[in-house]
């Protein structure tokens, strides 16, 4: 039943193209994104699933990553990624969300644009420059502050990553907060609420799920971050002792791929293991991004507020 209706719709869809052939071209360009995502999934999976056939679940829960000895257990790498990203989010979430609220609700209109422009510039600084600054300035600072011999540790990676994810969190939650209908705020203010009471009891509850989505997008961005993290994390594929020791080096997932792919011979076990890691990363970020998208779109109040 559903199929019949769908094919009827499809027919209508393609009839349309006959009237204006250009529309077919436009449609193809729009459809291109779907094609690319499918190709991406297919080709990463083609190489990556090989690794799961070879190593089984060991690729995810194995404790030792030593390609030279044929050991491909990525658990320490996954742990490293999650550790660094959690550290970064602990800093970046309050930083980003409070900044978003401040810019949208408190900052006077006249300087809002200039502040936003500067933050946009901050967002466009490339990963490699953050890595460079991390190695040159932040790592030595961390080393001398905590009295350790090398500054390239999980904490440094978290700090750099926090700075890099703030613009993402800030941008998305800022958009959501500014989309809260003005009438709601005015109603609260008219009832005698102070500005802060209005923000806390009206703006934040309405924007709550949007803020959550921005955090998820920040997570997706942070866990996929490669070059900067590689440069400042220390690249030691071992779970720190104790596991929450942020002053020991780690080796996040993305860093391993970037570092070892160059040496891996095409078709070798290492090559497919690295693609396996890539596949994990792809699927993880895909799920997080899709969820974030659904959350934002499910927000009826804000959707109506935009109109």
């Amino acid at each position, binding site marked *: 039943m559903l199929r019949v209706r769908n094919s009827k719709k499809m027919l209508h869809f393609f009839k349309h193209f006959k009237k204006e052939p250009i529309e077919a071209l436009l449609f193809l360009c729009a459809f291109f994104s779907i094609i690319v995502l499918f190709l991406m999934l297919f080709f990463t999976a083609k190489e990556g699933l090989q690794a799961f056939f070879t190593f089984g679940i060991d690729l995810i829960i194995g404790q030792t990553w030593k390609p030279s000895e044929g050991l491909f257990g990525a658990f320490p790498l996954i742990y490293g990624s999650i550790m660094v990203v959690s550290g970064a989010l602990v800093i970046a979430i309050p930083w980003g969300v409070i900044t978003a609220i401040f810019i949208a609700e408190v900052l006077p209109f006249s300087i809002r644009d200039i502040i936003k422009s500067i933050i946009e510039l901050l967002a466009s600084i490339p990963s490699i*420059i953050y890595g460079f600054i991390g190695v040159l300035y932040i790592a030595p600072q961390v080393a001398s502050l905590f009295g350790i011999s090398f500054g390239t540790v999980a904490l440094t990676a978290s700090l750099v990553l926090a700075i890099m994810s703030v613009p993402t969190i800030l941008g998305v939650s800022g958009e959501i907060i500014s989309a809260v209908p003005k009438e709601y705020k005015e109603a609260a203010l008219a009832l005698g609420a102070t500005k802060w009471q209005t923000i806390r009891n009206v703006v934040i509850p309405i924007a709550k799920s949007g803020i959550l989505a921005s955090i998820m997008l920040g997570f997706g961005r942070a866990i996929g971050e490669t070059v900067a993290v590689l440069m400042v994390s220390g690249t030691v594929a071992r779970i720190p002792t104790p596991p929450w020791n942020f002053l020991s080096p780690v080796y996040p997932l993305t860093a391993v791929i970037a570092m070892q792919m160059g040496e891996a011979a095409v078709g070798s076990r290492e090559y497919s293991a690295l693609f396996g890691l890539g596949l994990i990363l792809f699927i993880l970020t895909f799920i997080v991004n899709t969820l974030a998208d659904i959350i934002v779109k499910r927000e009826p109040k804000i959707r109506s507020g935009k109109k």
Partner: protein
Amino acid sequence: MTSRIKEKVFFTILGIPMVACLLVFFWIVFVLSSGIGTLSWNILTTSVLKGGIFEMIIGTIYLLLGAAGIAGPIGILAAVYLVEYAPSGKLTRTIDQAINNLAGVPSIVIGLFGLTFFCKQLGLGISLGAGWLTLTLMILPIVIRGTEEAIKLVPTSFKEAALALGTTKWKAISSMTIPSAAPGIITSVVLGMARVAGETAAILFTSCVLVTRGLPTTPLDPVMALAYNLFVKIVALGEPPEKVFGIALVLFFIVIFFATAAIVLRIYYRRRQPWLR
């Protein structure tokens, strides 16, 4: 009165994280500008083979222009479809979702895909062309979203005026809507270029080499790029960061140039086009 003062104090505290953002930015600018002494006109224009960085700069520009040249047309047409033609339905929603997802794919995964698909499957090898296609995937979502915004800002009356004269829908859109949205469209392409100018992970396995003879003459030649060289020199060769300060600085200038250009363009055209006020 006291509660108002209290609130003022509170809001000032609430502003600290924003000030921190600004401080971080200015600190980065300050830190990088301290290395300006390592740059000279000589280094910029001398070949890599003789210790300069000339080919890296041109290589980076080649990568950017090519990628924007591919992603630009596709992205613009896709956005026109989504705003002007797409019926509201499942397929359109899926396309929309796919664009968001594409924007969120980690650059290293895009790099891996480029390696297996463009380099191996399509047989492009480590080449400028493979780099273009890989970077295209990163620029595309930015161009589509920016163009969509720009088109939505154009008053529909422009298009309707053309339609009323008896033109086809496409003629109305291509002669009225797109030209009126052009500044916004250009801004989004420039913004896309800014976002990938320093991209390293995506071109790591697909298009770059540390040293090659001269500039690429065909899209099938490998290319030298600032970001790649910076990465390999620090990470793989273990050179002290101070020694490659010049490369980092030039890369930073290029990125900031494109990012600032996008911002200035946007502000300038918003002022000039009365319907955007």
